C-alpha cells in the first residue's frame, strides 16, 4: 500500500460518520442507501446467510422506503461483513477494512476486539459500529434494521479485503 492510498483510507475512516449522515437525509440522488430503521417499522425479516465467500440469497427485492429487519448469520469459517450501500460507499469502506486487516483487527476467522477499540488518536477507533453494517466472526448472528430510500444502485456487500472483488455481494432490487 502506498502513502496516498493510506491517506485516503485514513480520510475515509474519519468520513464514515459524515457519509452516514448524508445518507440519513435521503437525498435521492441515487447516492444514498437509506437510513437506520426502527424495529417497530420493519415490514418483514430477511435472513441472509454468509458463507466463504458468498451470500445466500444473492439478491433481494424491496419497496422504496421499506424498512427491513435483516438477520445476518455467518455460517463460514472466515470473518464476513454485511453492509448495505452503493458501490462507491463499498469501495471507500474497503480501504478502511484493508487497514483493519493490516492492523490485525481481522485475522482470518477472528476479530481482535482489543485492537478494534484501540484509540487511533482524535478519539477515532477501528470499531466497526456503523448502523448499515455488521462484521461477524464465524458462528455469530446479528441484526441490521434498515430503511431503504428511493430507488438507487444498492448492493449488500462484504468489504473484507478481496471478498467483494471475488464476488461476495448481493443485489438489492426495487419493486
Amino acid at each position, binding site marked *: 500500500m502506498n502513502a496516498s492510498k493510506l491517506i485516503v483510507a485514513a480520510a475515509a475512516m474519519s468520513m464514515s460518520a459524515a457519509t452516514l449522515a448524508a445518507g440519513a437525509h435521503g437525498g435521492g440522488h441515487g447516492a444514498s442507501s437509506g437510513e437506520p430503521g426502527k424495529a417497530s417499522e420493519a415490514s418483514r425479516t430477511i435472513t441472509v446467510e454468509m458463507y*466463504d*465467500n*458468498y451470500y445466500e440469497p444473492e439478491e433481494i427485492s424491496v419497496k422504496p422506503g421499506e424498512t427491513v429487519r435483516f438477520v445476518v448469520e455467518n455460517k463460514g*469459517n472466515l470473518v464476513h461483513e454485511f453492509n448495505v450501500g452503493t458501490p462507491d460507499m463499498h469501495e471507500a469502506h474497503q480501504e478502511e477494512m484493508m487497514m483493519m486487516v493490516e492492523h*490485525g483487527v481481522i485475522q482470518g476467522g477472528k476479530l481482535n476486539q482489543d485492537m478494534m477499540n484501540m484509540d487511533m*488518536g482524535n478519539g477515532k477507533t477501528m470499531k466497526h459500529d456503523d448502523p448499515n453494517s455488521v462484521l461477524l466472526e464465524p458462528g455469530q448472528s446479528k441484526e441490521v434494521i434498515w430503511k431503504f430510500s428511493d430507488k438507487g444502485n444498492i448492493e449488500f456487500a462484504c468489504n473484507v479485503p478481496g471478498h467483494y*472483488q471475488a464476488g461476495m455481494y448481493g443485489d438489492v432490487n426495487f419493486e
Partner: protein
Amino acid sequence: MKTRLLTGLLSLLMPAMVMAGEYDLTVDRVKIDTGDFVKEGIGYNGASPGPVMRFKEGENVKINVTNNLDEMTSIHWHGLILPFDQDGVPGISFPGIKPGETFTYEFPIQQAGTYWFHSHSGFQEPDGAYGSIVIEPEGREPFRYDREYVVQLTDKHPHSGDRIMRNLKMMPDYYNREQQTVGEFFSDVSKNGLMNTVSDRMAWGGMRMMKADVEDIHGFTGLINGKGPSQNWTGIFEPGERIRLRFINSSAMTYFDIRIPGLDMTVVQADGNNVQPVSVDEFRIGVAETYDVIVRPKDEQAYTIFAESMGRSGYARATLAPEEGMEAAVPQLREPARLTMADMSGMAGMDHGSMAGMDHGDMNMSSSEGMGGMDHSSMEGMDHSNMKGMDHSNMEGMDHSGMSGMDHGSMAMGKKGGPSDPFYAKGSGLVPTAANGGKFLSYADLKAQDPLYELREPTREIELRLTGNMERYTWSINGVKYEDADPIRLKYGERVRFKFVNETMMTHPMHLHGMWSILDVGAGQWNPIKHTISVNPGTTVYMETEVDEPGQWAFHCHLSYHAAAGMFRKVIVEGGPESAQAKTDVLVEDGGEV
C-alpha cells in the same frame, strides 16, 4: 419385488453412467508459429497448445491417447490426484506409449480447479506437448464471475529441447545474454572501488555461477494460448463484467511477472486450490504453477495482459477488450534483476565470514516456529518505507503497547529501503515489485480458503538440498543426481515435513506428483496446498505432505533442463491398500528408464 430391485439398481448406476466422460487425444507433429519464427513441434489433436480438457468433479474420465509420433510419448495430468499408474511418468507410473499405440487412461476426478497436462517424455513438453484442464466443482464456486478464460503461458524457443540441452551441457551460458561485460566491470569499479568489485567477481566465480543467472535460457518468444506478442491473443468482455482468468505457466524454464495495467487482480485460486481472495497489482507465476484471478474491467477500453519474464529477457502479451482488434499500450521491459550476495548465501563451501551485514537469523521466516502466534503473513505486504508522506501527528493516541506479541523487529518491512518478502533471501536482488508501486503477491499472502487437511504434527522431516553446478550444468538433490540416487521412501498414512534448502543461484519450482504439497507460509491450519513449490536462491522453504496415495511417484524440479540434468527423485509410498501395493510390485519388475 424384483422389478423394484432392478429399478433401484439402475438408479444407483445411473449417476455413474451419466458422469463417465470419454475423451480422445492424439499426439501429433505440428507447426508452431510464434509470429517471430515458425518451427516444428509436438501438439495434441493437431495443435499446440492442445485443447482445454473440461471435466466435472465426481466424473470418471476415460481418455484415449493415440501416439502419432515415431517416438515414445506419455501424458502427465499435472496436479491431479489419481491412482499412480495413471500419472503418466514413463518408468515410474507406466512404461510409456509406443508409436502408433493408443493408451487409455481411466481415473476419477476428485477435485476442482485449473490444472494442465503435458508429456513427461524427453523434451516433448518444451517442444509444445501441453494443454490445459478445467474442472468444474460439484457444488458452487466460492466466488462469482461472468466469463472465464484460460491464459496459458509458455516460453517458445526456436531450438528444439534436445538441442538446447546439448548446448547447455557443452556451454552452460550458451543461452545467457545477460552476462556482465567488461564495461560493466569498470563501471562497478568506479562505483564500488576496485577491491570490492574484484572480490565480488571472485566470490561469484568460486560459486561456479554467473551473476546474471536469473534465467538459464534467453532468446524465447513468450506465448499466451499459443499466440506470440504480435499475434495478440484477445479475450472479449463487456464492461462491468467479472472475468476469471486461469493463468497456467507451461514454460520449460521461464517465470513470468504478470500485470494488467489499469486493473486490480483478485487472486482466488493457486494450483487449483481456492485461496482466501487477495487483490494484487502484479504476481509472479513459477514454472508449472497456476493462479486464477478475477478482474473487473469497468471501462469500454482494451487492457494489456503483460507477462514479463523474471529475468526480463522476454515477454508474453495478450489483450482483454470489448471488441476484437482493440489494443492497449504494451509496456517496456523493466531492467533485469541482479542476484546479490544474499541470493547465494545458501551456497555450501563459501566463506560466509566475508559477508558482513548479512543476517542469517531471519532466513527461516517461512517456518511456523519462532513466529510467536502472530500472523506475520498478513503483514508482509506492508511496506512502511513508503509511508513518509503520512502524517503521524494525529496518531498520538495510538497505543502500540496494546499490540502485545508484535515484534516489529522480525517483520519484513524493508528496513533497508529495498523491497522484501520472507520467501526471498534477505537483501535479495530478486524480490519483485509491482510496476505501479502497488501490491505484489507473495507466497505469504496465500491462505487456504477451505483447508483440505486437519493441522497435525508431522511425523518426520526430510531435508532436500537443491544443489547444482552451473558451470557443468549438473543439477541434483543433496548433491546426487537422479540416476545415482535411491528413491525417497514414505509410509502411507504419515505426514512428512520437507525442508528445501536452495544452495544454488537459481529458483527451483519443486513438483511432487500424486500428493498435495502443503506450503508452510506460517498460517498453520490455513497454509495453502499446492502442487508446485517455488524455492528461491538462498532460502529455506518448508512444505508438508499427507502421504495418502499409495504407489510410486515422481518428485522433481519442473524446469525442464534441470529435471533432465538430475534434479529429480522417485518417491515410493510403502503400505496402503493391498491392491495398490500389488500393482507397484508389478511395475517395479517391469521398470523402464525415465
